[in-house]
């Protein structure tokens, strides 16, 4: 299947590191990240863009990497969960808040959830005026089957340093 007619050369910057790779035309970005680059923190949960386990940030936007072909990321900058904290170093404030507030159980949705929240917090660093309803809508594209979302709301607010606001 990897004959010349169906492969392309892409240049993608991932977590600050530039990569040049030859990829099959039909390869999804999520498979490029996981299989080609070995970044296994980005997960696959549904294949239809509903669950958000594969969420990464591309040129500043949170996107679902199972909905994008690797060739479409040519020339773009990708951030994955592996970029949030240095290996062996301290967790970043969002990760730390997830830990302190028990905002994860099985951990499968967590990387996507963190990347969604990271993008949202960059756009909305102060959540003090954002009602819970809106905050919940901001990550409704990330399904979590363990936590009931309750502690994720708490953790994201804590990470933003915001006062608790209810709808």
């Amino acid at each position: 299947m990897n004959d010349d007619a169906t492969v392309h050369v892409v240049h993608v910057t991932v977590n600050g590191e530039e990569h040049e790779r030859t990829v099959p035309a039909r390869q999804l970005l999520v498979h490029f990240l996981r299989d080609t680059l070995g970044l296994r923190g980005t997960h696959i949960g549904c294949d239809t863009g509903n669950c958000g386990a594969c969420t990464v940030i591309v040129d500043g936007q949170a996107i679902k990497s199972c909905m994008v072909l690797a060739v479409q990321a040519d020339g773009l900058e990708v951030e994955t969960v592996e970029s949030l904290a240095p290996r062996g170093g301290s967790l970043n404030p969002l990760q730390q808040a997830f830990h302190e507030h028990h905002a994860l159980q099985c951990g499968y949705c967590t990387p996507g959830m963190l990347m969604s929240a990271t993008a949202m917090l960059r756009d909305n660093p102060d959540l003090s005026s954002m009602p819970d309803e809106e905050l919940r809508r901001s990550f409704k594209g990330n399904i979590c089957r363990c936590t009931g979302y309750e502690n994720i709301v708490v953790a994201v607010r804590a990470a933003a340093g915001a006062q608790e606001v209810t709808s």
Partner: protein
Amino acid sequence: MTDTLTEPGIGTGTSWQGQSVPRKEDGRYLRGEGAFVDDLWMHRMGYVYFLRSPYAHARILSIDVSKAAAMDGVYATLTGEEVAELTDPYFQMAPGAANGMVDYCLAVGKARFMGEPVAAVLAETRELARDAAEAIEVVYEPLPLIVDGVATAEPDAPVLHEEIGTNVAWTGLYDYGDIDWALAQADHVVRIPHMYFHRFSSTPLECNAALVNWDPGTDTIDVKSNIQMPMFASMYMGPALRIRSDRIRWETQDIGGGFGIKITTYTYITAIALLSRKAGRPAKWAETRSEHLMGSGHGNERTFLDIEVPVMADGTILGFSARAFDDAGAYLRYEPLGAVIWSHVLVGCYRFKHVRVKYTETLTNKVPVCPNRGYSRLQHLWMVERIVDLVAHELGFDPVELRKRNYVQPEDYPYEVPNGCVYDSGNLPLSLDKTLALIDEPKWRERQRNAPPGKRIGIGIGSTLDSGTNNFGQSQIINPQLPFTGNGEAAIAKLGFYGEIQISLGTVPQGQSHETTAAQVAADVLGVSPDDVDVTAGFKSLQNAYVGFSGTYASQFAVTGLNAVAGAAEMLKAEILKIGAFALGAAQSDLELSGGMVQVVGDPERAIPLAGIANLALANVAALPDEIADTTSLTCRYVYRPPFEVVDTERKWGNISLTWANQIHACVVEIDEATGQVTILDYAAVDDCGIRINPKIIEGQVHGAAAHGIGGALHESFTYDEETGQLLNATFFDYHAATSADIPHLRTDYVESPSLTSPNGAKGMGEGGGAPLHAISNAIQDALADTGAVVTHAFNPPERIYEMLNADHAVRGVEVVSR
């Protein structure tokens, strides 16, 4: 991750147990360093793809794999015909004719549900495996089909398994007290002809997956998978593959949720093993979401018929009678255990004395059911809570007071219910009061009275039980020939060269924080911090201890798992003290373990670190007297065995579970009359699971179970087309797993009634008992009270609410006969 915990009992006491110790597991997940199955690979491995039946019921006339097998990069193919030669059918737990059910890992001769695997391919890439599967040519002859779980029991229904000759897999009468007498005595009899609990699934976010290597040199099968109950799977797979069961070597690590759905994947793992052997390569399978929804397992679907409830004038409910039809789908892969497991909660939270249930388990052309959070009990508990609520509505009782009148009372425990189950503890009236306080019920009653035009407000209560720690003797109620009784769990505690404490478990966690709570227990026994205790991630059958029913399921870890850890740690402590007494020249009774040291009480100068103990036992052993060296290994295996007895299969009587956690939920809904849309305005849950080992983790389980139930009540239902047997919602587009926008803020509180039967006073509690399904049905009923509508379905999407609002309720779905 290290949280630099320093001392136990911060602020409260002297024990790590009881504190919300931060999770030891979190670090790797937060960094994206979890090792889930699809993250693993092996040299020379291929990818597996299953070709599935597009028909719900069809004879397989021929399968031609030649085009697929000829494709460059295809390593092996597998068909049902080969499977029938290479394997034997899985053993069946059902008695009678259904015991002869022929079930293989691929369809043989016939496909019996849409999505059933009929062939499989192992190939160089996942894309090629898929392409090759599409190149397999299968000729089907479609057959008449049935998806109705009640009608399938009729003699004219198309039969799924000719060798059984009927679609009735199991039937039995559960009859306690004297319901006929009660119905004759009662001041009122409430009759509900039909109630229906739908199919849904908690759909773990990580689908099923396995990396299997059948090593030709040793003829062993290494399975890295996310299966929840591996040793149970060995019981099925060993005989089926005609190999020693210990040749199957299980390994799990991080599992992305399970909820019971990952118990029955042994069929897929069998097929993958055969492909690996055939190709002489490791084989990896990662199920897609659509495959998961159409081909893995669904929660049990149940229809209740002819419900009759005798009620006295003062509101005392005497019991009920009903017929139940449980639809198991096309095969019995954990069933018919569900046909007895529901009876852990025969009378729910209530002091009913007279109960009769005629229970029938049937087969249909749908995905086989498998345990799903609240397995087999939540369907029954929903029905019980629905009938209590309907009694209140129809006879004019206050729903709160009626529940309190009929609840098992705090002074009743230990309370034996009519089928011999002994509820261990609880304070249901207090839990209910706390729940109603959380939502401020009077406030909502006021708003209900003043609801704006076009809106209706309803308040509902869901009282439920979470029975934990099965007595597998219950299986003999289904089939007296089954060699299963009791239960147990194993753990190993070790001391390493430099005094490191390591625990390994027989359990297979999927997010339940076992590494953390096991460390809390071991730390308390051994006088160290949880940071000092390493709990092995996952389960490895070559390394960990296990018993036949080891695994993580059925709300039991706090009892079976943690009591096993406590036992193993106590054994290790005894060995440490024995060696310490020699080293310090002191009596064991004068020694204590604290801060990683063995020391003489009151004389901290006379002490030896754990590393010194380990040195003596592991590397300096000639220095030890024989009587000590011969009786210490610093590797201590303990099996916790709950105090169960063999059950009375004739009377269907016995203590078939050990603990009963309870949860009371309350929910406020608003209904939009124009659309039927239900919005949850407020939600509260009060949990009583006895002694709490880690309150934060328990609260997390309460949140999760609440979200599953809310999803099941309002958003999640598998729909099969009656004509074609097609599953109509086999993607996450169409099957709406509840999102953050669907789940409201969850208020929680707790009551702590120590278990009288578990040595640590704790109760398993993760399944939650499906309370949101009860509470939401009851809240909708409350909102619709003046319309005459009766909520008879557990799943209530807007279209059903709209229909209830606009239907003619001349025939109401409930009838009251009063004397």
